[in-house]
């Protein structure tokens, strides 16, 4: 239906000929932005409603009873449904470790929460299909679980800033929302998020459409194809500064895939964009000393590179 609408606008209303570069690029742009905004507004709303049942205080309480393995798995899963914003990373981290959540389990949460987020998933689903979106969730959770276990095993508690352990944390009640409040919260949340990301989506899809229409087929196969062993690490390194723009980055990456970028490289790149960011590193340096911060980045980046190679080999 969306496809015929885009066809109608471009080829009938504007009167461009199908098959021309500009016509195809414009058609692609209209179709993709419509599809993505439909998916974004419905799914963000649903996810926001689910999230109202999982305030961080409750997640903390659940995790404070868990140990290694089970705790890491639970933390990674709860990372999906607990609302998280890197601006609250510090109080969240302190709240977790102070209430007895093990350090490794806390990291599983901190890794999964930004990485397995609804915006990245919707964009992947809309542009790459549900299989890639599911693979992204699965491997994202696995990276969070494994990296958390490894960090826990390294016994790096002494590299948490000293004041964290001395902090007095008050107990706050878990506020229970009524159904009406949940709906209101979800509506406001969806509106705010869309307001923030729509320019990135439009620009991203625009650049993607341009690439689709103008860049020659297999243009990238030589550099970003599966035969280049450096493609995955370079993609991860490029992903770090592109923080929080998953909405704008995915359409561009999707277009690059059509021009020969390998899918494992794409997944690794996406994970680096969402999971590793410089602003988050700066925020976390308030609670982590340098060796732990570097270990965290190193292990997560390493795990993501492995994921990239793995999927380049099997897909």
């Amino acid at each position: 239906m969306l496809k015929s609408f885009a066809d109608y606008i471009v080829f009938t209303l504007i009167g461009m000929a199908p098959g021309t570069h500009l016509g195809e690029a414009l058609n692609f742009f209209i179709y993709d932005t419509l599809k993505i905004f439909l998916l974004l507004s419905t799914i963000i709303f649903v996810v926001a409603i689910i999230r109202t049942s999982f305030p961080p205080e409750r997640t903390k309480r659940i995790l404070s009873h868990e140990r290694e393995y089970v705790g890491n798995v639970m933390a990674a899963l709860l990372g999906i449904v607990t609302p998280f914003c890197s601006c609250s990373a510090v109080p969240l981290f302190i709240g977790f470790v102070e209430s007895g959540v093990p350090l490794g389990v806390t990291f599983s949460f901190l890794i999964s929460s930004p990485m397995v987020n609804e915006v990245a998933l919707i964009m992947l689903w809309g542009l790459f299909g549900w299989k890639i979106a599911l693979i992204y969730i699965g491997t994202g959770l696995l990276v969070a679980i494994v990296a958390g276990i490894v960090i826990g095993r390294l016994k790096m508690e002494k590299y948490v800033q000293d004041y964290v352990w001395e902090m007095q944390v008050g107990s706050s009640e878990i506020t229970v929302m009524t159904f009406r409040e949940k709906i209101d919260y979800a509506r406001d949340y969806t509106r705010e998020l869309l307001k923030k990301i729509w320019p990135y989506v439009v620009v991203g899809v625009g650049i993607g459409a341009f690439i689709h229409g103008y860049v020659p087929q297999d243009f990238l196969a030589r550099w970003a194809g599966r035969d280049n062993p450096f493609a995955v690490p370079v993609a991860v390194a490029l992903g770090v500064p592109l923080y929080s723009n998953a909405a704008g980055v995915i359409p561009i990456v999707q277009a690059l895939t059509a021009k020969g970028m390998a899918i494992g490289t794409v997944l690794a790149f996406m994970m680096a964009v969402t999971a590793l960011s410089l602003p988050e590193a700066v925020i976390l340096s308030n609670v982590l000393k340098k060796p732990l911060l570097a270990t965290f980045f190193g292990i997560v980046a390493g795990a993501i590179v492995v994921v990239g190679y793995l999927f380049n080999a099997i897909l």
Partner: protein
Amino acid sequence: MKIEVLGTGCAKCKTLYENVKKALEESGKSAEVVKVEDIPSIMKYGVMSTPALVIDGQVKFSGKLASVAEIIGML
């Protein structure tokens, strides 16, 4: 009445502070409004997601941006 806006300086925290000011203006009530930005004070309330609103020592909500109308209802 003492109103505290907890937050480490994010954009939402600033907006919440503005909304509290507007809510006081519109309702005609008076209160001391403070921005609390240091981590130990925020943690004392057990708040893990910012911004949060504390009225007379009681946490009203955390992790969301309340509208002016909502805040008036809490005053």
